[in-house]
């Protein structure tokens, strides 16, 4: 049986990759994907703990996160489409109208 720590390390690595690409990337879609990556890194730790302690609540949480992520994906992609239609770009550095 694979020890718990491996799962946790993998989750941490995945999360770090997500954060890094979230900060570094300029393309909205990539940023969006890195958010998904972070979510799933968290999901991984949840299910790992759930398996370790034989408790179902961690898995239930994962379902919630997935549902929310799906909804977020739908809304987020719609926003991205709208932004692209009006700005003709997906570069976040050029989407800065909120600036003073």
């Amino acid at each position, binding site marked *: 049986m694979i020890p718990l720590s491996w799962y946790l390390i993998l989750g941490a690595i995945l999360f770090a990759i997500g*954060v890094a690409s*979230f*900060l570094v990337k*300029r393309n909205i879609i990539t*940023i969006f994907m890195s958010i998904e990556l972070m979510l799933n890194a968290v999901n991984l730790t949840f299910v790992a703990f759930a398996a370790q302690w034989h408790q179902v609540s961690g898995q239930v949480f994962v379902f919630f996160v997935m549902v929310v992520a799906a909804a977020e994906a739908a809304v987020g992609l719609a926003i991205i489409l709208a932004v692209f239609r009006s700005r003709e770009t997906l570069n*976040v*550095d050029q*989407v*800065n*109208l*909120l*600036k*003073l």
Partner: protein
Amino acid sequence: MNPSPNFNLWLIPVLPLIGSAINGLVGKRFPRRLVATIALAFPGAAFAYALWVVSQFASLAQAQIPHIERLFPWIEANGFRVDYGFYLDQLSVTMLLVVTGIGFLIHIYAVGYMAEEGGYYRFFSYLNLFMFFMLTLILAHSYLLMFVGWEGVGLASYLLIGFFFLKQSAAQAGKKAFITNRVGDFGFLIGMFLLIKHFGTLDYDKVFSAVAQLPVETSVGFLTATALLMMFGAAGKSAQIPLYVWLPDAMEGPTPVSALIHAATMVTAGVYMVARSNALFLHAPIALRVVAIIGALTAIFAASIGLVQNDIKRVLAYSTVSQLGYMFMALGVAAFSAGIFHLVTHAFFKALLFLAAGSVIHGLGGEQDMRHMGGLRKLIPWTFWTMTVATFAIAGFPPLSGFFSKDEILWKAFSDRTHGSWVFWLIGWITAGMTSFYMFRLWFMTFFGERRAPVHEEHEPAGGAHLPSSARADHGHQSGVQSAHGHGDHGHGGGVHESPWIMLGPLVVLAIGAALVGFLGVPEALGGSNRFDQFMAPVFHSSSEPARSAENFAATEPQKSENPEEEKSLELELAAASVAIALSGFGLAYFFYVRRPELPDRIANNVRGVYRTLLNKYWVDEAYYATVINPIVDGSRSVLWRGIDVGVIDAIVNGVGTTSKGLSGVTRRMQSGSIRSYAGWVAIGAACVVGFMIWMGLRI
């Protein structure tokens, strides 16, 4: 209280309030005819209802008077309690009839008088509002509710004096009236606080019975202080020295307002209040003496100013002040019912005088200067005849009403052993002569001789713009639509016209009243039985012998002379003296203004100083400006405005604003609008949180 019928007294004040609300809220969209109908219907209904109440009142048993109706508790706090309730006794019944009856007549008149003016609905809304407050004032069963009406009539008066608010002088006069009244109200208020402090209640019945338990104060004590403060309030409302200055200026309002508020009803509120508090005043003889002195001084002081005024309404205004002084003098010599009797007769003839003067002004297209009148007798006969009745009544010619009431006061002033004095009689007597003189001066100048056209007559067709603004007071327009009367064909020359019937009707009714109400109080010396005095007797326990009973609060010794016959002949002699001085006033006025019209100017030139002093009203206004108003205005400007407002309050507010602006200038840099920088902040924040938790974990 024993069970007594419910009259629903609250309806009487509320009816005009409904009229006021309808006209005030939606009257703007109504046609004039409908506004006038509403404005007349509600006070008319109040009058009719008041008549019914009075007829019911007459059948009440003596033990059921005063009749008190409590509606609901209004204020309850820690043992102190004021009900919203009404109080009906002989005094309030009398006032009720005067206010609703004369008020209703003046409403009718106003419909005709204001027909050409802008702001029609507004005017009648205010007028009805005034009725509401005045009725609240007289029907209230506690000082506090009276104070509500008291302040309310002040408000209505302010609104109506400043009715032509585009005119600077009218707006100023409104403010002056309101602020002067406020000064007096302050006294009233403190007086009420004292009552609460000592008796814990403001209900009339409780206060009076509590006062009755106390001994008569021979030196200045709590009762005297309270009574004096009350009198100060009354002096403000009833235009007595030193607070009379607002009343003459109040003539800036439309004439029906002058008649209703500034002659017949509101200004008598002070008289009513002092008469209502007679128990209090009788226990404070010093305060009573002060009332008499103030009244006597005001009477003669205002009459002397009235001698030389040229504006027809101003003469009447000073005459009102003077007559109010008479009433206070009567109260001050503990002749309460005589004071109220004069209040009633005065309400009739003074309302009539004002309305007739308004009719003259109306007929002349806004002319108010008596020097430009004359010879109107034939041109406006109805006005002339009604005005004649009123003039003879106020001058005190028997058998018109003014004779009986004025004589009653003079007799009481002379004869009351405790409170009276021959000095008061003498002042009253001289004032009566002056009253007669200036009233007949007005009468002769207006109706007799040749018509003295205004100097500006040749300009008149151009719109009358050259007339001094004071002469236009009544027709100064809000809407800019100049009235036909003010400037059209009537404005000049022979175009004098009689007023419409809707204005003359009330004049005739009032004239009949002014001629006849005096018979209510024919003194015994003249073969009458003074029914008014007997009617009032239960309210004023000491002023009439039949009402004397064991428990009354009388401060005075019985005044019955040992020799009634001698007293009667003395009373007759005094009456003859008043008639004589009234006649001589008439004679003098006739001599000066009909026989030798050039004489007054010559005399005025000879005693220039005196004349100018009188014409300028003893420079009292100027003195008030120099001593009170200007210091307050300057102090407010330099200290309160520039110092405290700008220097402290504004500085604090601006300081808060500047500080937060500076701070946000720094913090707004975080809001770059760039998504990636936000993401960075989020990451930093998350890192901080994680770091903090790790640190906490390590500590444990």
